């Protein structure tokens, strides 16, 4: 990222959506450790083009997301590249907490008594943001859960890694196309934290450095190179 143009803190249980242009960067920091940031992407030009986790994983022969990986749309293009990652593993298959997960773990959402400390869940947070754009639950694809890791064994048994993200863990995305970013900071659906998590997440926005010919993410695998070519075709003449 070039200079930081804007910094903000998103409290736990919060949500936001914003359009980021090709050539901008978003840096996400887990301020206190133990955060979860659910995130999905749509083309800001045509919301039918959206983040596709299976294409992202199989295209790069990976199960985890880290520096070097690109977040693919379902149209063969890259929304964003993970240009920096201090943590080394983020997951994209567990989906979001539903109201019943949160109620069972920490008690139901209750604005009357808790006000902004209410127990929001990831699914509802996404539905709220999506509705602002005329999008519905049908438009919610598999999301990224930044700062969380799930590990599998030889039989496919899966568990959330406890204490995976420590204080000040940080990941930076560089946007390769104009993107609608929708995010929440609600708990991971497999979280067994004793209390509803209250840690903050910091977001920094700025312009990205131009993409060099030997860019790490673009060249991380042959597939990423072709995806970048698709982006170049998409922006031909722009």
């Amino acid at each position, binding site marked *: 990222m070039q200079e930081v143009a804007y910094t903000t803190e998103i409290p736990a249980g919060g949500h936001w959506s914003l359009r980021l242009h090709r050539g901008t960067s978003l840096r996400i920091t887990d301020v206190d450790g133990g955060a979860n940031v659910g995130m999905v992407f749509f083309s800001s030009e045509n919301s*039918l083009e959206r983040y*596709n*986790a*299976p*294409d992202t*994983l*199989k*295209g790069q*022969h*990976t*199960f*985890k997301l880290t520096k070097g990986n690109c977040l*693919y749309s*379902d*149209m*063969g*293009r890259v929304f964003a590249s993970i240009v920096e990652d201090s943590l080394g*593993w983020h997951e994209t*298959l*567990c*989906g*979001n907490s*539903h109201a*019943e997960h949160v109620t069972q773990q920490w008690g139901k959402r209750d604005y009357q008594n808790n006000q902004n400390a209410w127990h929001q869940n990831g699914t509802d947070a996404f539905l709220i943001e999506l509705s602002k754009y005329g999008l*519905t*639950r*049908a*438009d*919610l*694809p*598999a*999301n990224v859960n930044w700062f969380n890791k799930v590990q*599998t064994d030889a*039989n*496919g*048994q*899966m*568990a959330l890694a406890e204490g995976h993200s420590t204080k000040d863990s940080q990941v930076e995305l560089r946007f390769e196309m104009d993107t609608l970013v929708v995010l929440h900071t609600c708990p991971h*659906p*497999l979280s067994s934290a004793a209390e509803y998590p209250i840690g903050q997440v910091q977001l920094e926005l700025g312009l990205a450095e131009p993409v060099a010919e030997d860019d790490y993410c673009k060249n991380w695998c042959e*597939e990423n190179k*072709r*995806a970048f*070519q*698709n982006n170049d075709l998409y922006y031909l003449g722009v």
Partner: protein
Amino acid sequence: MITESPLNTANADFSEVVDAGDYFIYPLNKGETMRILDLEGNQAADTLFFNLHDPSERYSAMDTIREQRNVYLTSGSILRTNLNKPMLEIVADTCGRHDTLGGACATESNTVRYSLEKRCMHACRDSWMLAIAEHPEYGIQKQDIGHNINFFMNVPITEEGGLTFEDGISGAGKYVEFAALLDTCVLISNCPQLNNPCNGYNPTPVEVFIWS
């Protein structure tokens, strides 16, 4: 877990052979059972499920995987919707493992995975686009086409967090069978992919049976 079915295809109320490259769309109502038979072995059957009466409620890979704490599907697996509700149960499986992560091929992802110049090779997503165009009566639109199951496909995960496409563990005559817990619509693409071993480089027909 390998589990044989007590059902006999001779008594099925419905059956249809689905050629490679074709789609299959059909209702499977609560209480009915469907079997997909891998006729010649190692054929990926990319499958989506919808609530028959409201396709905005659909099979959710994320909710299914998370709630069963396992990335693979076999007998005993409960397929869940995006409302986290049980939708179908796999009641028989002679293959032993089915994939939830690989998704379906598409002409667009083929350009990334193989070559920009392979954009015109047939792919599962195109079959689904034709299905929804030809069958508006199901009310399914592009945004409803989400993350499918790949029956008969084997996609192991490594300890370092990598993903590999292995040779299939399925074989001629293997099948998977599921019972509907609510009224559903089943949408299958019999995968035409020629660029990787998911179909053993030789896409072949599958057969579908329904017992009411």
